[in-house]
């Protein structure tokens, strides 16, 4: 019984515990503590070495094993952390399915992370897909619709993965992770596997064009579930893609598969998919008027950065990609928490019907401020570090256009998170929200803790970079050269070290100067929002002096949503095609005379037999 066994058993025990006890508040508190316990157990596992679980099964002559390495450890930490904060955040949620679903998700993800061969990878993959459903159905009717869409997409991806694994088995005769590396295949076989496996896994990751399901499925459910799903769920796809690149088709192979001869390789294709996944969903997010959907669309966009970083597959790029998983998870979690505490208190997340809540919910505002700075990738929060690493890697690889694309994406992020904060917390407080109170402590405390984490890992990225370095060495890369404050550039051709402590110091000295200027200016008087006038008119409650309706209307005029419709059109075309086929097949059963088919089969077979 080693620590990994203990971790999995505790996780399974948590599932059982949640099934029985999640109805009471005490039970939910204990549940939260159980995630902390799991984290503690996780720390007993040495991230630097591979640990094999003593659990194993033999089914149909395939031995299934579980093992843990640095990469799994890294993802497991994020999973458990997200679950811990989500459970805390959901202490006052009565829905039993939420807590059961959360623990089931954590368990299945841990199994996925410790998968030791392709079969157990697929089994865990399907379990993760289906346990995600438990967390997605917690909202109103619309969440059920979104879940149906999700599960259709997810199973489509899962089946592609299934096909890939079956092909691996039939080509190599083994399901172990080293099956392909030990029996090299032909280039077309590699190409097939890459399409099936990476394509299948990227559905979960919501890379273009498989992204249409994600925003609704993640956003429209209950708060803690959104926090957890948004933070980590989609990243399981990233983990599986890393596994694929490690064990099936490495980037060198991908780079030798030409889609356009001598010009455009499979890897280039994936890079462009990642870049487009950054830009297009981000600008779709800009158009959203529901805070939850806005955040969820960002989740899709941010996945692109991680994918991009990994596709660089160098020291810096992959470190950036992996680090962004951690950073993004913390930012997305805190943003969802903030938005859902607004929903909890006001009953809406429609950005056109909110505003001015900063005075009523200051802690939630603070949390959102920290979150959007991190999400937009600005110092001093942690999102900056990972994006910097990815940019740096892109530049040093000479991919200027992709770099430009990702910068455009960041621009969209900044615009849209500003819209989010402006429309909800800043501006005019609505009359109906006059008596709104701050969210309860069970919501604010995890928000504050997360804010601290975001800030600390932003100032001292070395803490999280250590985990990333372990993960990197587990997948066979040279780990990034880090110190507490940042990274040291490996090759000195392009100089570019990063030390966040210095950056933050500079930044805060700037803030200090601004504060001195602000304080030295004249005193202002606090007034009620209606005790005010504009253009010579006194304002009353009916007057809108905050342009939260149609925010960015001018910008929207420029970026027409053609790209979004093109994907919707594609999806609709597939659906209509299937429906058309269904109508045809139904007509088979609608005929009054049905015996002719018997004759057709018999006659055809006879004809073929005689000829």
């Amino acid at each position, binding site marked *: 019984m080693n620590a990994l066994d203990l971790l999995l058993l505790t996780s399974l025990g948590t599932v059982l515990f949640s099934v029985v006890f999640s109805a009471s508040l005490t039970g939910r508190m204990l549940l939260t503590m159980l995630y902390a316990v799991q984290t503690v157990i996780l720390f007993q596992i040495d991230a630097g070495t591979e640990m094999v679980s003593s659990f194993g099964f033999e089914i149909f002559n395939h031995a299934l094993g579980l093992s843990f390495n640095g990469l799994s450890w890294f993802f497991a930490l994020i999973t458990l952390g997200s679950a811990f904060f989500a459970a805390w955040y959901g202490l006052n949620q009565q829905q039993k399915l939420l807590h059961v679903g959360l623990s089931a998700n954590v368990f299945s993800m841990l199994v996925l992370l410790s998968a030791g061969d392709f079969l157990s990878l697929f089994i865990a993959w399907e379990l993760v897909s289906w346990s995600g459903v438990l967390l997605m159905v917690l909202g109103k009717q619309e969440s059920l619709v979104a879940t149906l869409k999700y599960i259709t997409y997810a199973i489509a991806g899962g089946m592609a993965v299934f096909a890939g694994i079956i092909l691996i088995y039939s080509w190599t005769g083994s399901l172990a992770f080293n099956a392909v590396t030990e029996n090299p295949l032909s280039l077309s076989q590699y190409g097939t596997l890459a399409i099936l496996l990476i394509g299948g896994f990227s559905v979960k990751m919501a890379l273009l064009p498989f992204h249409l399901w994600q925003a609704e499925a993640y956003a429209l459910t209950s708060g803690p579930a959104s926090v957890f799903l948004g933070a980590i769920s989609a990243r399981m796809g990233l983990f599986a893609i890393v596994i694929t690149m490690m064990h099936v088709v490495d980037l060198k192979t991908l780079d030798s598969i030409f889609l356009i001869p001598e010009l455009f390789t499979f890897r280039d294709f994936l890079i462009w998919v990642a870049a487009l996944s950054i830009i297009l969903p981000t600008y779709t997010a800009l158009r959203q008027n529901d805070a939850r959907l806005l955040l969820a669309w960002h989740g899709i966009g941010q996945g692109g950065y991680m994918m991009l970083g990994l596709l660089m597959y160098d020291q810096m790029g992959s470190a950036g990609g992996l680090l962004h998983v951690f950073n993004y998870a913390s930012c997305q979690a805190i943003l969802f928490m903030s938005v859902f505490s607004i929903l909890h208190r006001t009953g809406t997340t429609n950005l056109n019907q909110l505003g001015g809540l900063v005075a009523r919910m200051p802690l939630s505002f603070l949390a959102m401020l920290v979150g959007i700075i991190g999400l937009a990738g600005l110092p001093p929060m942690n999102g900056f570090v990972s994006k910097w690493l990815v940019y740096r890697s892109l530049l040093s690889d000479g991919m200027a256009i992709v770099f430009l694309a990702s910068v455009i994406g960041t621009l969209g992020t900044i615009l849209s998170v500003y819209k989010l904060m402006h429309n909800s917390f800043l501006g005019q407080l609505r009359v109906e929200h006059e008596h709104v109170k701050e969210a309860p402590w069970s919501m604010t405390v995890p928000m504050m803790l997360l804010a601290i984490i975001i800030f600390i890992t932003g100032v001292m990225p070395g803490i999280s970079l250590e985990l990333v370095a372990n993960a990197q060495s587990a997948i066979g890369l040279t780990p990034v050269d880090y110190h507490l404050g940042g990274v040291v550039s490996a090759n000195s051709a392009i100089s570019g070290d990063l030390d966040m402590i210095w950056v933050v110091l500079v930044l805060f000295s700037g803030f200090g100067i601004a504060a001195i200027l602000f304080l030295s200016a004249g005193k202002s008087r606090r007034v009620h929002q209606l005790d005010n006038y504009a253009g010579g008119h006194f304002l009353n409650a009916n007057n809108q002096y905050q342009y939260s309706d149609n925010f960015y209307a001018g910008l929207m005029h420029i970026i027409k949503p053609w790209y979004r419709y093109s994907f919707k059109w594609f999806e609709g075309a597939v659906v209509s095609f299937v429906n058309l086929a269904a109508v045809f097949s139904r007509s088979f059963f609608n005929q*009054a005379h049905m*015996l002719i088919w018997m004759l057709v089969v018999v006659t055809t077979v006879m004809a073929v037999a005689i000829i």
Partner: protein
Amino acid sequence: MIPDISSILFSGAIGLLVIGVGGLLLSNNAYRVLLALVIAEAGANLMLVIAGYRWDAIAPILTGDFTPQPMVDPVPQAMVLTAIVIGVGVQALALTLIIRVKKAYGTLNMVEIKKRMEMDFDRLSQEANQPGKLEDNS
């Protein structure tokens, strides 16, 4: 000129089969479908008997002094015996079903029957999940 006997017999069996199957395919009247079925079955039976026929042989019954002589194969005959009786049973059952269909829908037209049946299904489907239906029809 008369063709040889095997082609005559085969054409008889095949003719019955094809006429029967053709009737099954093309008849619109349920009763005529039944007649076509009878004819097709007769064709298959004839085929089976032909399978056991043997030149210059006697019927498979020992007569006279019980000396062994070449006989036609008794096995297909026994099977055809069975098949004929089976056929008549199915035919009687089909007739009772036709009677009920006629009673229910007032028509023997296959297209019409199908149409009415689908309408019935739609109605049943709408009624099935309505609350308060207390009939136990398991």
